[in-house]
């Protein structure tokens, strides 16, 4: 029976049945408009985060303390550009164009991870970002390898393979600083203090306050809730902080043997919403920089188009 013979409700039931039985949804399948919209929102936001995320680290490439460190940081930032590309392309399979997504980013209609609105003030921040920010992203992305939309899930598998080097190079920077001179150790502590809480915020609001969570879980776009993923990250990070010999930024952190998890202090949600709504240190700068780079690249796109036209004409003549 062709799709057109079915009512919307029947189609939706068949769709949900696929999801419930752990089958992936592929681009040409019928899907509810809400599913498509929800995916476009989440995937484009993810793509924007990869791209905007290049700025805080790009800030230190020319000032890396050694040639080796410079090569490593360059390689990482290059990976993030690739992640942006994988994700934009996967999002395009849902019927939105790259130009529309970029427009939404630049006008503020679409968001990106708030963490990238924090400034990178010291070399230690390169350590903290790789270790904590990429670490939090990995927690989230490992979970998304099981997301219900095929192209997104496959993109996540590819990305996760590349991510683990990001986290480890960051942690290695932290180890070197933490075991170094007192000044270096202080730099590591300072970066940890500034990036720990914003990393926890990367998982989003508490489940009880999350606008998109329930639908996303039902459609298996998300596989684990914000709070569960955050808990995993808190548990993983605690021994890593301890090994560095640094002070844990959360004074209320305590192992809870009964739960088998750490209890932790409350996040400053006012800060979270304030940064999301545009009042972080670097919100304006990040978008301005993106617009500038985009505009400065216009001649490249124009040249490519002109070259294509020229070849087309040649082809017609031959």
């Amino acid at each position, binding site marked *: 029976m062709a799709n057109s013979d079915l009512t919307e409700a029947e189609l939706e039931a068949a769709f949900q049945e696929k999801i419930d039985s752990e089958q992936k949804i*592929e681009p040409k399948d019928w899907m509810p408009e809400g599913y498509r919209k929800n995916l476009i929102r989440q995937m484009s936001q993810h793509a924007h985060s990869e791209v905007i995320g290049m700025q805080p680290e790009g800030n230190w490439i020319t000032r890396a303390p050694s040639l080796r460190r410079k090569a490593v940081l360059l*390689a990482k930032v290059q990976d993030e550009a690739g992640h942006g590309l994988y994700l934009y392309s996967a999002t395009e399979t849902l019927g939105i164009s790259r130009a529309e997504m970029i427009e939404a980013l630049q006008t503020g209609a679409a968001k990106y991870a708030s963490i990238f609105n924090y400034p990178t003030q010291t070399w230690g921040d390169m350590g903290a970002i790789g270790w904590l920010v990429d670490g939090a992203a990995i927690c989230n992305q490992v979970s998304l390898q099981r997301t219900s939309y095929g192209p997104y899930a*496959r993109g996540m598998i590819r990305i996760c393979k590349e991510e*683990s080097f990001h986290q*480890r190079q960051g*942690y*290695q920077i932290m180890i070197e600083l933490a075991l170094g001179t007192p000044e270096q150790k202080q730099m590591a502590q300072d970066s940890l203090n500034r990036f720990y809480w914003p990393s926890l915020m990367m998982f989003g609001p508490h489940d009880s306050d999350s606008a998109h969570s329930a639908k996303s879980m039902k459609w298996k776009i998300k596989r684990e809730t914000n709070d569960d993923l955050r808990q995993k990250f808190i548990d*993983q990070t605690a*021994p890593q902080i301890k090994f560095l010999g640094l002070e844990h930024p959360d004074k209320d952190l305590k192992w809870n043997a009964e739960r088998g998890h750490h209890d932790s202090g409350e996040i400053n949600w006012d800060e979270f919403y304030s940064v999301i709504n545009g009042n972080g240190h670097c919100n304006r700068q990040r978008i301005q920089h993106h617009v500038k780079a985009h505009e400065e690249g216009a001649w490249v796109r124009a040249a490519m188009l002109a070259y294509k036209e020229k070849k087309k004409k040649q082809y017609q003549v031959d």
Partner: protein
Amino acid sequence: MTIEKLELFEVFIRSKRGLDHKHVGSLHAEDHEQALEYARDVYTRRSEGVSIWVIRSEDICASQEDDSESFFDPSDDKPYRHATYYPLPKEIDNM
């Protein structure tokens, strides 16, 4: 139309939802539609797939094996792109 005049198509099959389409072979056909039907008849007789892609062979742009040195070599001297390049202290069991 003689068989020699038919175009060559490449066939890709998705064996299961969620997996990538994989190249399985090629065939001759008059157009896309016919290529899809042939591909179904030839390549999925034992339920090998849930989805088929066909593409004109001449539309595929491929890198040349002979160029592979200059094409791929540069990544050999960048071991730092791999996680294993960064040893973990034994106190940290997973990362």
